């Protein structure tokens, strides 16, 4: 299966939170299991400096509410051999931060990430040609919308699966309806069934509705966000309506960094077969923190 992952972060080069760790690790894990996997991400300066990409094809453009946003596509491979398609629009992504700087969000994030999602869908349709698009969080939600609703793209993506994964439900990409034309969609999509949300536009809601499958990062959390209004952030009803098309898949742990048998940051390595060194680690930490060594028996002897 050919999979195109669409996300605003990719570790270790463009990282704000846990999303970057996922996008850093998941493509390689999918590829190791035989899936042909690529990643579509914005061309941040940190990425282009590290990976030295080449331009793919001519300049392209996305029409956004009357303005033509033109961009290039850059191609590169990660050291692990995963192909990257980078959306190069310097005015939007050639900045020091991903979502903001100095503790302040950029004021045009809605415009930036609508552009990114739409450009990503077009790049998938023309260049990556995947069987499935796997979009992550609200910054990639417009890719799902374009696949299913944008006239110039949807016919070519009919047989491509759209999958949306929620990492952080607290951020949904909500904006005023006068900016709806940025999406390049017919106004009929601004309905309570799809994109309308309390008089505003909600990108994550639209992606949840239009995706073939929606996932979040654990099975229990998937149930909780669909049934507990406090955790559903207003989308519990929409999520509940997905039925068995809403699933939960746990993220993986980074066992390269976190493995007591290979960990160079701990006093002595240990493993299931050589557990005694764990007691040594405990003794050292107690000394470091000036905590007393209790007299009661310790199982690690």
């Amino acid at each position, binding site marked *: *299966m050919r999979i195109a992952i669409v996300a605003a972060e990719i570790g270790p080069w463009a990282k704000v939170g846990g999303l970057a760790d996922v996008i850093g690790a998941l493509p*390689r894990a999918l590829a190791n*299991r035989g899936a042909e996997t690529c990643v579509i991400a914005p061309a941040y300066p940190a990425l282009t400096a590290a990976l030295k990409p080449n331009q793919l094809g001519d300049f392209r453009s996305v029409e956004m509410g009357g303005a033509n946003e033109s961009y290039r596509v850059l191609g590169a491979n990660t050291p692990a051999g995963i192909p990257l398609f980078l959306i190069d629009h310097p005015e939007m992504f050639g900045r020091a931060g991903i979502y903001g700087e100095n503790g302040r969000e950029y004021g045009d994030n809605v415009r930036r990430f609508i552009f990114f999602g739409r450009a990503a869908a077009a790049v998938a349709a023309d260049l990556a040609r995947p069987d499935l698009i796997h979009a992550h969080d609200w910054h990639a939600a417009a890719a799902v919308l374009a696949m299913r609703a944008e006239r110039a793209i949807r016919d070519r993506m009919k047989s491509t699966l759209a999958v949306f994964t929620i990492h952080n439900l607290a951020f949904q990409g909500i904006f005023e309806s006068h900016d709806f034309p940025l999406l390049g969609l017919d106004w009929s999509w601004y309905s309570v069934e799809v994109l309308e949300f309390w008089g505003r536009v909600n990108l994550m809601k639209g992606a949840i509705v239009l995706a*073939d499958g929606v996932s979040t990062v*654990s099975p229990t*959390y998937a149930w909780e966000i669909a049934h507990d209004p406090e955790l559903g952030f207003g989308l519990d009803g929409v999520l509940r309506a997905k039925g068995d098309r809403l699933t939960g898949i*746990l993220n993986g742990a980074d066992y390269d960094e976190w493995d007591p048998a290979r*960990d160079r940051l701990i006093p002595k390595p240990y493993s299931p077969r050589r557990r005694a060194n764990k007691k040594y*680690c405990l003794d050292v*930490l107690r000394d470091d923190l000036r905590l007393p060594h209790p007299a009661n028996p310790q199982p690690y002897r």
Partner: protein
Amino acid sequence: MIGMVTRMTPQKGVDILAEALDTLMALDIQLVMLASGDPALEKIFQQAQERYPDRMRLITGFDNSLAHRIMAASNMFLMPSRFEPCGLTQMYALRYGAAPIVRATGGLRDTVSEFNPRTRTGNGFLFSEYEPTALSGAVARAVEIFRHPAKWQVLVGNCFRSDYSWDRAAGQYLQWFERLREERTAV
């Protein structure tokens, strides 16, 4: 030794931990916290450290090396979160043989199961109600098992065997993708 590596915010359950602290300290444990965030919450634990100088340490600020050393030293690892979409630190704790004591929410509930010494199954301890007494009850169960080294070693073995690798996650994603593909072509 109970370890915690967390953010000092109510989401992480440190508010009920603060309320449960005196009960916990009666259980003959040591608690090491690496956490920073809400100054008011930090202050509560700083004051507790003065009350229990031999029993607890709060280290504020980010210190990756210390996070690793706490994992390696801890017998138990506490995560009383109010909610936790996935959570990764409990997976690290399992790998380091530190039995997780967690609230049964989100990814914590999916990675940790209650240890049963009779059936020798389970890799940690859970509580459901977001209440200080539920938290201290789970810690008390863990401490009780800890007093029996043979049982404890069975539990630690179960922790070591818990696999939450990216390979496992990728396999689940691919299975799900295939199911979606079949459903779509069936339409």
